[in-house]
């Protein structure tokens, strides 16, 4: 007889479950864990003709080039800055609208508006680039058409990097807030009516009910969305930036993030050394950042810690 509680026993009693989980585990091993070995690419002189471990070891030289390019600070600042704004504004907006929507009367009105608010999530980023071009293009863009009709000078938006900070944030929210809004809405619907009834009996007005019942009940959902958002704080939203800005160098000072930089190094300038070292920097920096944030949260309140 097998000893109870041993790993073999566990494998044996649940062999079907393990078999069902196996493809997923293999997928993540190959797709996500295997490329971690490839971090070694950052320390070699890249050569298409040989295997990874036959390439010439160059130590930190690739990182040195990256540092000397002088773009690292700007890229890091842009990447983290945008993501923090996305997380904060995105959550505030989607929680607010979810609450407002949940308090509305009228089944049809609710259904239709909810669908409309979720609609932009269905649009591909390629289409988003069409929309953006539609709005801002110098000759036929809506913005300039309207400005000219009002008797004002047209604006060449594509040469004004500062404006793009707002555009990118706006279109991020436009495209993504409906998604998290529906997730929040789902958890609001899960809150038992009894809480609200009881609060009403106690004379709580609608603001008090929202603040003391709905908002605290959304904590779990918020934490889990935050968890995933933090995981991608150094990457994420590549499509948005790349499709909105493309390879328009004039705008890079405010719109270039690590992801777009790595992609261009790989596909446009074919600078594999730069691309890998930037990627490694991105992963390590992001990971350290999350560990630090997590340990701070753990100190404040253990329940809120991510892991």
């Amino acid at each position, binding site marked *: 007889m097998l000893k109870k509680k041993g790993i073999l026993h566990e494998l044996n009693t649940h062999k079907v479950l393990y078999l069902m989980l196996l493809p997923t585990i293999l997928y993540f091993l190959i797709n996500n864990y295997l490329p971690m070995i*490839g971090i070694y690419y950052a320390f070699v002189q890249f050569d298409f003709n040989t295997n990874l471990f036959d390439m010439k070891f160059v130590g930190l030289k690739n990182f040195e080039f990256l540092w000397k390019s002088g773009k690292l600070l700007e890229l890091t600042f842009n990447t983290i800055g945008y993501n923090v704004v996305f997380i904060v504004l995105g959550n505030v907006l989607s929680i607010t609208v979810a609450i407002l929507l949940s308090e509305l009367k009228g089944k049809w009105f609710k259904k239709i*508006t909810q669908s409309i608010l979720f609609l932009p999530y269905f649009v591909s980023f390629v289409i988003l680039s069409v929309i953006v071009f539609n709005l801002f293009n110098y000759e036929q863009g809506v913005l300039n*058409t309207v400005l000219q009709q009002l008797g004002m000078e047209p604006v060449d938006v594509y040469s004004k990097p500062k404006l793009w900070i707002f555009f990118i944030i706006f279109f991020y929210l436009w495209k993504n807030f409906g998604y998290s809004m529906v997730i929040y809405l789902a958890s609001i619907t899960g809150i038992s009516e009894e809480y609200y009834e009881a609060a009403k009996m106690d004379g709580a007005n609608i603001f008090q009910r929202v603040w003391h019942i709905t908002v605290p009940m959304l904590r*779990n959902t918020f934490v889990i969305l935050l968890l995933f958002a933090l995981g991608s704080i150094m990457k994420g939203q590549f499509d948005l930036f790349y499709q909105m800005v493309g390879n328009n160098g004039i705008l890079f000072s405010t719109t270039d993030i690590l992801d777009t930089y790595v*992609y261009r190094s790989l596909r446009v300038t074919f600078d*594999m050394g730069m691309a*890998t070292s930037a990627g490694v920097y991105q992963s390590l920096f992001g990971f350290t950042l999350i560990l630090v944030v997590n340990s701070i949260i753990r100190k404040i309140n253990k329940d809120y810690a991510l892991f």
Partner: protein
Amino acid sequence: MKIREDNTARWFRLIAYIVVITGSILCLLPFLLILSASLSSNESILTQGYSLIPKEFSLEGYKVIFQMPDEVLRAYGVTIFVTVAGTALGLLLITMAGYVLQRKDFKYRNYFSFFIYFTTLFGGGLVPYYMLITNYLKFTNTMSALIWPSLMTPFLIILMRSFISSAVPDEVIESSKIDGANDFVIYYRIVLPLAVPGLATIGLFLALHYWNDWFSSALFISDPTKYQLQFYLYNIINTSAFLTNIGAGAGVTLSEGVPTEAMKMSMAIVVTGPILLLYPFIQRYFVKGLTVGAVKG
């Protein structure tokens, strides 16, 4: 007894209506803009710019696309194949994993959950990934290159895990185990039927992702007959912008033969249409399907 609505509630509702209606309008406008442009004559776009209502109604954009349908249809074919195959396979793997990870008697479920979640925290970066797909898995110019990268994401697995654990009571699983059903039979006969809203929701996210994907083509496909629809559109947009720029520089209007602007917009509508049509059928499952519970377990 009905409790009387107080004044604050009326104010609250008024604000709610204003915010929700304004938001809806902002969400709809860009669609109308594209739709209107796709129905305008190219000339009116070039001379008077884009507008919300077509200034000169015309179907020439659509006509151009359907005059040479071969390429569009091929890109459609690739995208439909990838979407159907990817969604089906992804759903199978995600539901199995979600089911196993929510089983309370599955001892190492938290370790496995973390094993999956960890990949969102740390990764090799784009270059090692690119090398994995092209040099080691040898997926270049195959359908696998389009399907493999988006098959599963940690978020969808956790979503499915939470959904199953809230939709399927533990007792149901327990009692079927006592009846002698094996774990796969329980999954297939009991869990899947109860998880339909979750399946619809996550299936839609997968389908949406595959339908909207352009990045896999950009990275791994060099054979134009295997471009996904979105990447095909992306190329049209960039080439036609390129052509217009050259034309403008040389003082020639290239647009006479090809209604570039109108055609781009019509193409955008043709590309987006199918997935928008899918939406109303699945929408009713959403609020039911999107239950998220903790990763920590």
